[in-house]
């Protein structure tokens, strides 16, 4: 990508993303390009597909949960074209790295509700918590345990008692107890990972050590 288009892109993105300086946006874009090229995608859209993105989440941000990595991908992918473009990349990272509490709250909620109805349903919770118990003696018992865990969560967070968690519920619960921000599994990077990432991205020391 030539300097001119890059500058243009930086300019347009900087107008919407306030958390980064222009120079930082530029760094992120350069990183994005190198990642895309490395991933060697030949798609109509220039961007990261799900696998490439998951690899990044895993290697850079230390995420392990497959389901949640997919969901994070969808949360990044605002236009639902199964591909993260440059703008989505910078926007997503702004929440990841520099997001305010409110932004993160919103982001997490987006990750957790999948079917787009604006609520996290009992079934969705069950899916997300499915692997949260260490193997018990039988499938059935473990299912029972998860179900109870879902009940506990709903009891705690479902303030309006409609059997699902609305954004209002979520916001209220998390504001009361911040530990509940990533209640259904880690979907934000750890602080240390963020620091590492920023050092890498903004320090122009991108090497091939990403192990992709």
């Amino acid at each position, binding site marked *: 990508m030539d300097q001119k288009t890059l500058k243009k892109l930086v300019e347009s993105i900087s107008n919407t993303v306030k958390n980064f300086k222009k120079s930082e946006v530029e760094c992120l874009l350069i990183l994005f390009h190198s990642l895309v090229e490395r991933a060697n995608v030949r798609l109509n859209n220039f961007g990261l597909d799900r696998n490439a993105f998951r690899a990044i989440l895993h290697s850079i941000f230390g995420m392990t949960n497959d389901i949640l990595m997919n969901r994070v991908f969808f949360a990044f992918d605002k236009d639902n074209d199964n591909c993260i473009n440059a703008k989505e990349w910078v926007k997503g990272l702004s929440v990841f790295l520099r997001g305010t509490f409110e932004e993160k709250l919103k982001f997490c909620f987006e990750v957790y509700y999948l079917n787009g109805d604006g609520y996290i349903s009992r079934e969705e919770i069950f899916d997300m918590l499915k692997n*949260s118990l*260490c193997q018990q003696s039988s499938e059935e018992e473990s299912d029972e345990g998860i179900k109870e*865990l879902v009940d*506990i969560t709903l009891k*705690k967070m479902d303030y309006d008692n409609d059997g699902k968690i609305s954004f209002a519920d979520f916001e209220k619960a998390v504001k009361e107890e911040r*530990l509940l921000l*990533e*209640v259904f599994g880690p979907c934000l990077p750890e602080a240390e990972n963020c620091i590492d990432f920023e050092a890498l991205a903004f320090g122009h020391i991108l090497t091939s050590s990403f192990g992709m």
Partner: protein
Amino acid sequence: MGVALTRSAQWSAAGYGTRTLEITPLNEAILKEIIVFVASFIYKHPQEAKYVFVEPLEWKTNLDPSAFESGYIVSETTVKSEEVDKDGQPLLSVSVPHIRVRSFGQLSRLLLTAKDMKLKEAQACIEANRDPVTKILGLDYNTMKEDTSVVNILDKITKDEDPESEIKMKLGMLLKQLDLHLLNHSLKHISLEIRLNPTIVKNDIELLKHFSGKGEQTVLESIDYTSDYEFSNGCRAPPWRQIHGEICYVLVKPHDVETLCITCSAEGVFLNGGKTDDEGEINYERKSEIYKDLVTFLKERSAKFSENMSKQDVRFSGEWKKKEALKEAPKKEEAAALQKALPASGKSVLEKNYINFGKSQMTKRLQPSLNWKATFDFKDKGASKDTQEEKHGRRLERSGPPVSPRRSQLVRKSAEKIEEIISESSSESEEDEEPPDHHQEANAGLPSEYWQIQKLVKYLKGGNQTATVIALCSMQDFNLAQETCQLAIRDVGGLEVLINLLDTDEVKCKIGSLKILKEISHNPQIRRNIVDLGGLPIMVNILDSPHKSLKCLAAETIANVAKFRRARRAVRRHGGITKLVALLDCAQNSGEPSQSSLYDARDVEVARCGALALWSCSKSYENKEAIRKAGGIPLLAGLLKTSHENMLIPVVGTLQECASEESYRTAIKAERIIENLVKNLNSENEQLQEHCAMAIYQCAEDKETRDLVRLHGGLKPLASLLNNTDNKERLAAVTGAIWKCSISKENVTKFREYKAIETLVGLLTDQPEEVLVNVVGALGECCQEYENRVLVRKCGGIQPLVNLLIGINQTLLVNVTKAVGACALEPESMMIIDRLDGVRLLWSLLKNPHPDVKASAAWALCPCIQNAKDAGEMVRSFVGGLELVVNLLRSDNKEVLASVCAAITNIAKDQENLAVITDHGVVPLLSKLANTNNDKLRRHLAEAISRCCMWGRNRAAFGEYKAVAPLVRYLKSNDTRVHQATAQALYQLSEDADNCITMHENGAVKLLLDMVGSPDQDLQEAAAGCIYNIRKLALATEKARYT
């Protein structure tokens, strides 16, 4: 058998004499055992079977004479055995319906004959013969049973060689064996008995409710409690029924039978007399057999229920099984606990005895709560351990020490004791006694929270980070300030998990865990458990974490835990003090008030938590030292400049604790802390005021500090705080500060200016002792000045002061006597004291066991005797008073001795009294004290001696008792007051020639010559007088020699 029958068998309550055995499983079991014993007797012990009972066993039989076969002479209504005794009487005879049996052989046969009727016959026999052993062996053998010892038995056997008595002996032993056997048997039986508790019953009913309703598929049409009110122990039965062990009553409407009114009790479930419709009263009488639980009962009663149950079973059993598992473990200790809680229903009056017996056995076997925990751990950890460690590797199982925790605690404790003796501390008293754990009681009625918490702990143990965080957050919703919840967390093994979580790398888990620990550590038992589980070192490590909120939580938890000695030491040993002091540094560089709004609020929070923890820790001497060495004082001084009240309280609290140490007081002066303490006296916060006043109280032992308080304007706020008497803690601290400050005269003047003395006098009544001690102490200091003495008298302070002389608090008595003594300096006040009989009260305090009180009372007596009118008469009026004073000279406390000498000086001013004390042997006692280096004692002793010389031949006596030579040495003391008193004494003593010689021999002349040069006229005069006497004697001797 006797013991078993009276203790174990469940007799019906219907009167004496005709009592019958109830048909209970236990009784049945006992009877069966007896039958087995008797039936086999004829084979096992043929010899003894022939033994003829002393008295026949008689009862009403149901057997038909025709049932008897060979060996018996049978008629229509009578039966006689062919077997007869020595006198030809048959050993068994029946005349319907009465039967008499006189040997075990016949009893055995009878049982064989009875066939199916065995049980009935045995029961009838036991019922009619309440004490079979006596009848069989005779009265003497039965009583002998009480003190059965082998010696006793052997003795009897050897004494009368009679073969019959030997058989009797054997029989007696056999019966005793049977007795033991029966007791054991019934114990076994009891331990198998079902014991329901409110929680189990409630769960059952709730579960059944779940599956009840209209329709074919449900198990019941309805199931309802008769009462909506649930007592705190989970029972719904009225209290007077609860003592019978009844828990609740339910109305059950099965599909196929009428509504059943069922009683659920600790013993089991049974049908009662039903609920009468008009009054709603329940007929509590039992109408059916007892079943082990509701489901069994209903299965028996309703076919439909049992059918539908089996259909539901698939779903049901899952939930049921879980419940069962829970029930399993606590069941037995429940039995014991519940029985304790619900004692003595009609029949269990008898039962109670063996329950106690049984319980002790059971506890030995089960060890209630510990075991309960152990089994629990097993189940959960065992199942999930492997996978857990593999998958997450984070939850390191703590490798516990091989010693059991209790044991190791013991070992630790004894080691600790040794150290504690060495390191003493000022303010460790109140919370340091380790209260006994009351584990057991907690089981009596388990609240529903218990089970919910148990479930959550399961997720903590078996869940990944996400599940753990959810469980932790959910746990916070319980009322963690409630002891039930606190202990529930511990009892289900939650503490271990919470502490293990602190050892992981998961910040969120650590935060969640600490949030809970912080709350539950308000409970003293939990604190100890946390320390026992090694929680403190982990928390101390967290203090290094980069996460501020973690630091805060850890410090706050430490603040809660470190409320007792062992915990405080653990914090120090693991380097916690240094780390906590480092936390204080967070909020530094913020000294200037203009910037205070700019710095991160959370830094202040970190410092506040650090100060909180240090406050708790600062109650141990070693920790005070550690805080100082870690550079805590300047940091605390810095924090003192902030204006955050919740920060200031722990900071001042810590300083106040530490100010008990000299090193701190010096540092406090140097760090200009007093200034800020004074400033905060003006705060709005009562607690802060209290701690500031307390800190001033501690520090004001030092004159410079007292001056600083005045210079910074601290006296005025102190005086004005006196007017608010509602908060007694604060009042105590404020009066304490005033007391110590008033040691400086300048301060007293200020206090008078602020009208504090009047207020203090007003506080002499209706205040707690802590306040009184300080108020009286302050008045004692103030009354050293004339104006204040007048003031106190005018405000009516003397009466309440004298009234306080009757107290028992030693510190208070010391202060009161001092204050009264100070008042007595004023003749006008003295009159009031005398009128109120204050002198007698002071005098009687000489008998107080505490030396400080004795000394203080003796000091106070001096001005009293000086200023009282007719002092001599007054002193003589105290019967035995003079003897008491003289005998106090035998004390080994220097202060007491000095004060008593001073008192004697005053008493001896009256010739008559001097004569009396001389008779009581004051001279040898005083002389004995002469060899001392204590200047205070020297001075008062010398004064006393000089006074006592005024009577009879006391001068010579002092010489004989060798008091003179030591007195001469007093002249070498550095204290001029000693010189004066000694010179006086020597002058008096020199009237006796022998004494002059002794003085001369001991080089008194040269010393006295020096004294003559003193500016003190009295001293000059006395010294000169003494020299004159010595010289006169020398001249006289010379004259005598040459003439």
